[in-house]
């Protein structure tokens, strides 16, 4: 029954490898940019706050597919030559996902009450000492569950790079489907693989949420 899947397994799993690659690039870039975006969103400097806020609110109104297309069209013009789908997808994902990660970081930064920082200052600690031993560890522990959840979303979103021809997992599955016509097996297979990874990921996120609640950090 599942022989269509088994026959094409190497090809399909190669696509999954591309998916994982895309996810890790998107996550690294998205999280780092997200940290900055979060800082920008709590900045009191007007010429930082307003551009960042406009950027975040604009991008969050956009469907991801459209953003992927847009970068696919824009990048060759900016760079002067056609870009391969992987690179243009990575850029699109980083710019897109950074807005979502940015909001998570913003909430994390803001969850530290002013007085907690004041309490640290009142014992004579400097700003950088407070940031290092208090601010950052607490904010990170609080944000970890959401960061994991959003990473799972990014992982699922990579399937949309399909539309610019990237040879990732879903595209390869549909290519095989066009040859084999065993649609039920093939698409169930993709679904199951995604399900397993995302389900495990969500349980990990829950674990950290529980842990945070237990130690009173959340």
């Amino acid at each position, binding site marked *: 029954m599942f022989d269509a899947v088994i026959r094409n397994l190497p090809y399909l799993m190669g696509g999954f490898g591309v998916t994982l690659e895309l996810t890790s690039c998107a996550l690294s870039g998205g999280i780092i940019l997200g940290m900055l975006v979060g800082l920008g969103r709590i900045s009191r400097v007007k010429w930082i706050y307003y551009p960042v806020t406009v950027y975040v609110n604009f991008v969050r109104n956009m469907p991801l597919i459209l953003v992927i297309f847009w970068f696919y069209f824009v990048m060759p013009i900016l760079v002067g030559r056609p870009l391969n789908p992987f690179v243009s997808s990575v850029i699109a994902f980083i710019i897109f996902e950074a807005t979502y990660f940015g909001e998570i970081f913003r909430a994390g930064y803001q969850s530290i009450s002013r007085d907690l920082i*004041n309490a640290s200052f009142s014992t*004579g*600690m400097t700003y950088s000492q407070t940031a290092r031993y208090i601010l950052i560890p607490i904010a990170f522990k609080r944000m970890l569950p959401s960061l994991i959840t959003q990473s799972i979303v990014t992982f699922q979103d990579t399937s949309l790079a399909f539309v610019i021809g990237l040879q990732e997992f879903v595209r390869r599955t549909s290519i095989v489907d066009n040859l084999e016509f065993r649609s039920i097996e093939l698409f169930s297979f993709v679904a199951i693989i995604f399900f397993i990874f995302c389900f495990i990921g969500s349980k990990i996120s829950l674990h950290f949420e529980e842990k945070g609640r237990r130690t009173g950090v959340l």
Partner: protein
Amino acid sequence: MIEINNISKWFGDFKVLTDIKEVVERGQTVVICGPSGSGKSTLLRCVNGLEPYQKGEIIVDGISLSDPKTNLYNLRQKIGMVFQRFELYPHLPVLRNISLAPMKVLKKSKKEAEKKAKELLDRVGIPEKADEYPANLSGGQQQRVAIARSLAMEPDYMMFDEPTSALDPEMINEVLEVMIDLAKEGMTMLVVTHEMGFAREVANEIIFMDEGKIVERGSDEEFFTNPKSERTKAFLSQILV
């Protein structure tokens, strides 16, 4: 000694403190009371440089806070502060909450800092909680840890911002007892509180603030038995049952 010379502070257009003048001599305990929004907490935060002020001067042991050469971080080692919501570091065990600043700021060794921390925990009555996380302690216990944390820096002055307001009634006394012991041992204290029993027992001077101004001040007996202004009388009648 702490000299507060005609401090005025604005938040935008809103004047939060007007011409506050006060001197806190060494060994004295000064209690500040008043309705919420009167600026009491803001005043405390001006004294250790957590909040800036626009007019006037605060001088601590001869060092002016408005002098640009003043290192506020160093100054804060001399002034401990205890907050209404305790503000313990939730991700660190109690012992580390207390020993963190001595290790990082005073550069004490881990052994030294933890020894001192254990002594302080003993002094505030909860030596057995050293390895617990703040979330597992009651409010009264957490506040006592907060006091120990401030004391670990061996400050010359201690400020308290409504230390018992967030506590359930049965825990208020355990914290007040620690504070009373401190005052009796000669610590210079500036305390914002509604606990008039505490004020009666250890305060050398009581100040009543309203709408950013000092309305009345007096030594503790004359304050309670003979309040001069109408507003003071009204306030006292509300909080003294």
